[in-house]
């Protein structure tokens, strides 16, 4: 078995060498060095260097994500440790298409219902959805009354025009969410996690949502004014924000590193590389000792 093992080792080293050769960042990678040869993490980084023309991101989306980045990481890119949530990935999608379904009605404060289609091809199989939010913003030119109460109806459907071949009964789901539009607020977030969870989990790549708003003046704030309607066209087409937990080895698992630090600080003699099971035991151990204390 010796010679075969040595052959296997030789084969592995030649492949690694070829991988290492293409690994060097400085040589221009031409088409032949396809990412298949590259170590996974560089492949992830390399993907961005694809010659395929890159679609320009939505400027509002870019502004929102830069603000999110500043909240989550330092200038040098170090994740801020004051965050306790589990997601290590946040993706922001702009709707690929938007069809107006029905005209709005200023008297009742109903916004024109719109059909939105989001393509989630960039969400990988190892990214698990934790939370999803529809983001609305205002175009600041229009002034809004001080406080308004809105009801939003979201209906998800099978994107029929994607399943021309398969007869698909329109499966729809109505979802109400009360939200307060306040003058000073720049963004409105509508939590659609329960709506999208089954779709994202079943790896649906195209999410088709139709949204319509009905808004009334908030009586509590302005009892004098009647149910006056107003123009809500400032609500620009929404963005879809997904908070995900990337379970791959390359992603940073804060909860693991925080837990691991706690375990090693509590019992420094703990062997490195706890198996998942014994890690769980260690956690239980820590909890019970804390209770005892």
């Amino acid at each position, binding site marked *: 078995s010796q010679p075969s093992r040595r052959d296997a080792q030789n084969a592995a080293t030649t492949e690694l060498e070829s991988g290492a050769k293409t690994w060097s960042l400085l040589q221009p990678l031409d088409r032949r060095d396809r990412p298949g040869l590259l170590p996974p993490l560089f492949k992830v980084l390399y993907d961005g260097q694809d010659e395929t023309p890159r679609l320009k*991101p939505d400027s509002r989306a870019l502004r929102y994500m830069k603000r999110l980045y500043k909240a989550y990481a330092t200038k040098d890119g170090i994740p801020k440790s004051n965050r306790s949530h589990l997601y290590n990935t946040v993706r922001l999608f702009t709707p690929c298409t938007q069809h107006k379904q029905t005209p709005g009605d200023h008297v009742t404060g109903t916004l024109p219902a719109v059909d939105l289609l989001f393509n989630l091809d960039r969400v990988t199989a190892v990214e698990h959805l934790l939370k999803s939010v529809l983001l609305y913003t205002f175009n600041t030119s229009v002034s809004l009354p001080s406080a308004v109460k809105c009801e939003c109806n979201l209906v998800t459907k099978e994107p029929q025009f994607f399943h021309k071949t398969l007869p698909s009964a329109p499966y729809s789901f109505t979802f109400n969410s009360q939200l307060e539009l306040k003058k000073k607020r720049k963004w409105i977030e509508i939590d659609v996690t329960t709506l999208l969870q089954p779709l994202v989990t079943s790896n649906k790549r195209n999410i088709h949502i139709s949204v319509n708003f009905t808004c009334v003046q908030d009586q509590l704030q302005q009892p004098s004014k009647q149910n006056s309607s107003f123009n809500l066209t400032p609500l620009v087409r929404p963005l879809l924000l997904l908070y995900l937990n990337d379970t791959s080895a390359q992603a940073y698992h804060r909860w693991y590193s925080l837990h691991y630090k706690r375990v090693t600080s509590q019992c420094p003699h703990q062997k490195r590389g706890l198996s998942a099971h014994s890690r769980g035991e260690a956690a239980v151990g820590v909890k019970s000792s804390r209770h005892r204390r």
Partner: protein
Amino acid sequence: DQLPVSSVLRKPLTPASFNLSEYFKQFLFPQNECELHDFRLSFSQLKWDDWIVAPHRYNPQYCKGECPRAVGHRYGSPVHTMVQNIIYEKLDSSVPKPSCVPAKYSPLSVLTIEPDGSIAYKEYEDMIATKCTCR
């Protein structure tokens, strides 16, 4: 013990002839010993700034330098490192000396523009070397 203690004490204290800084040099780390070095790069140098929006500058740091013979606790090196050093010195110099490599890393948050125009915030593990060791 020939001279009574009093005469020794009376001896004027001559200024020490040796150089203090020279004396302490033996305790300093050798100049090129294995340690962490900075390398600040910006993604625009790699021409990646059209898809990596943030951070603008990134310091992955790296380990460089000689591994001392007695690595011991200072580098957290296993005993194997000293064994390898002995083999290199006494038995077969084709076996490489222990190398100065990263022992610990920290993550990096990256904001990227995806090919489809969507925007992704991701936190990658092991992107910045934070501690060196000899192995």
